[in-house]
């Protein structure tokens, strides 16, 4: 696999230098990576489902699924088969076309994200110069799918969930993008591959605050706990997918985990040095980092209660947004100070700055106790 990837890589580099020779190497490259991405997403999502359930079980002092196959490894497969065999129910009051279209609209942008994620040096579908910008643009589209699902179901719970989803995603785009800009300033490129190559020191050390902000707003963006407002099973039952069943529900389930995968992959690429790492092959490093980030998400999910929608907004606008601006400013100053690249000293400075800022914010910023003004 690895040697093959290297071969592909060589071909790819050639194709970048020379305009693609229609229908030669470029065609093949496109086909190969489409298959790889789909296979990668589906298998890792299955791995995620298994990993999440086992990790949650471990954290909650229970076993988790362990009956299907060795160590319960076939549980996601069994789940998939079950959900595929389920009857597909469309509610009477649903807007049939939109109801049918929503899972697809939610699903395809998530797959599109993986087009620019490097699995290895240059091993990606397209090395877009505007990679990260492209991701931000594309990933927002799935919200439309979720909103379509909630609106078309003809269910009030779904509608509430959909409205919450839109509100939270729109607010969290801003700290998300602002924290990325810090990374872009350091790396000097929007291309995902160039960002990885620029990380001689992983950006989590140079941008600790940025990482934190990105992780939090990323969790909110993909609606993971404690920001899983749109599903909020104890409040609005299952939110936007209350009325979905069968394959269409499976699509949403897939979207949820594929989004988590995409967010983990982006975090791994932007902050954890992507495919870079000693000894092990790069693609394995990349997958390990994805799982580490995903474990962080599982951890927060199993520990924290859910925030309320207005507290979610308050956190975005009063907490994360100013912090992201300050972080951006400080990063800008540092880049001006050390134009040749940040030294190790900057790591220390940034960590100190992060601690000070977080202490300040935790002192002056409350999530909004008590009654909110309406």
């Amino acid at each position, binding site marked *: 696999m690895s040697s093959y990837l290297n071969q592909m890589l060589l071909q790819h580099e050639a194709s970048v230098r020379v305009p693609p020779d229609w229908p030669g190497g470029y065609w093949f490259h496109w086909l190969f990576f489409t298959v790889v991405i789909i296979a990668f997403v589906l298998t890792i999502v299955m791995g995620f489902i298994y990993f999440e359930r086992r990790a949650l079980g471990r954290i909650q*002092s229970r076993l988790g699924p362990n009956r299907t196959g060795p160590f319960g490894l076939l549980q996601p497969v069994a789940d998939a088969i079950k959900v595929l065999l389920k009857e597909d129910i469309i509610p009477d009051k649903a807007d049939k076309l939109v109801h049918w279209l929503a899972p697809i609209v939610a699903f395809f942008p998530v797959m599109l994200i993986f087009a620019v994620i490097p699995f290895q040096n240059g091993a990606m579908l397209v090395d877009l110069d505007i990679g990260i910008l492209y991701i931000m643009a594309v990933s927002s589209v799935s919200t439309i799918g979720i909103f379509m699902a909630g609106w078309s179901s003809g269910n009030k*719970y779904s509608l*509430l969930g959909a409205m919450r989803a839109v509100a939270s995603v729109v607010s969290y785009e801003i700290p998300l993008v602002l924290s990325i800009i810090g990374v872009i300033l350091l790396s000097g490129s929007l291309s995902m591959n160039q960002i990885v190559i620029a990380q001689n020191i992983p950006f989590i050390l140079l941008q600790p605050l940025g990482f934190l902000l990105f992780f939090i707003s990323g969790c909110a963006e993909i609606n993971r706990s404690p920001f899983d407002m749109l599903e909020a099973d*104890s409040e609005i039952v299952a939110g936007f997918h209350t009325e979905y069943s069968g394959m269409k529900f499976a699509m949403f389930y897939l979207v949820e985990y594929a989004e988590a995968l995409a967010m983990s992959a982006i975090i791994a690429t932007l902050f954890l040095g992507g495919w870079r790492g000693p000894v092990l092959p790069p693609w394995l490093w990349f997958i390990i980092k994805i799982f580490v980030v995903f474990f962080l998400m599982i951890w927060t*999910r199993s520990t924290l*209660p*859910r*925030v309320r929608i207005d507290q979610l907004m308050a956190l975005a606008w009063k907490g994360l947004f100013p912090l992201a601006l300050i972080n951006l400013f400080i990063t800008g100053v540092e880049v001006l100070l050390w134009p040749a690249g940040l030294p190790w000293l900057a790591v220390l400075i940034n960590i100190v700055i992060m601690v000070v800022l977080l202490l300040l914010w935790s002192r002056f910023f409350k*999530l909004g106790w008590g009654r909110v003004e*309406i």
Partner: protein
Amino acid sequence: MTIKTEPFVINFGPAHPSTHGVFRMRVVLDGEVVLDLEPVYGYLHRGIEKLAEQRTYTGIIPLTDRLDYLAAMSNNLAHCIAVEKLAGIKVPERAEYLRVILAELQRLCSHLIAVGAFLNDSGAFMTPILYMLREREKILDLFEMLSGQRLTYNDMRPGGVSQDAPEEFLPALHKFVDQMPRYLDEYDQLLAKNEILLARSKGVGILSKELAINSSASGPVLRASGVKWDIRKAEPYSIYDRFEFEIPTGTAGDCYDRYLVRMLEMRQSVRIIEQAMKQFPSGEYRSRVPKLIRPPVGEVYSRIEAPKGELAFYIVSDSSIAPYRYHIRGTSLINLTALRDMIVGWKVADLIVIFGSIDICMGEVDR
């Protein structure tokens, strides 16, 4: 241009993940904000009061198990105390101690579920409730040792308990009581200072002291509103006057106080069990009581402090083997009186949290 908006009606329940059974609320929402709320009861009504009129005093005990099925021991105790008062039955010492131990274990058990379910409602995905179920399991094992049952114990009888504690009961209880404070510390570590939990529950769903008293709230709901009222202290039944314990009270009467009062009460329960174990006497576990109890004509209103509040039975006897009138003061139902006042003006998410913090059991609400 103004956009035309209108409030909409949404049904919470009877089949909803966090209505603790089959409770239903018709809620009028303006976006996320609750404008009005009307609880609808009765989905679990089984007519226990009417059924009890056809049964002997011992035969009612299994019915009481099914009232608040999360605290069946307390229901048994309340019923037995009422019948004993009515018929003038004496209870041997050992049985009294066993009863106190069982009632306090049951309080632990019920509060664990209450706090766990409250946190589950506030969105802590399963973790706290699973931790608490872990300890509840240990208590259920103890109950199983005594009565052979894990949920509906049917263990107490007028005049004592149905069976004596087996030999292995006390060592197992000892072990549990030693462990429990550490587990409670663990919960406090996870939850007590959790910023999100504080944000979700501090100042949310305030039940003022006046309203709490006026609307006959009882138990932790009343105490969280700052009223130091516990029937175990105010009118000690059984042998509660022999134990030292405190009544934890809240100050604000919000969801967090209700949570905190329950957590503190658990520690007090452990304290009571510890004392009861030290004084545990030997002897009879049940006094000689006729199979068919025929209390003299009369009536009794006897109350105990059940985990969810004041649980009372009003029994009218016409000296036959079955009660003439058997009334249950459903704690959970009466605690819901002020539900609307607590919830209106809050958001949907708070609705669930406030409702969860009251801690009801549908078996007792609808009876």
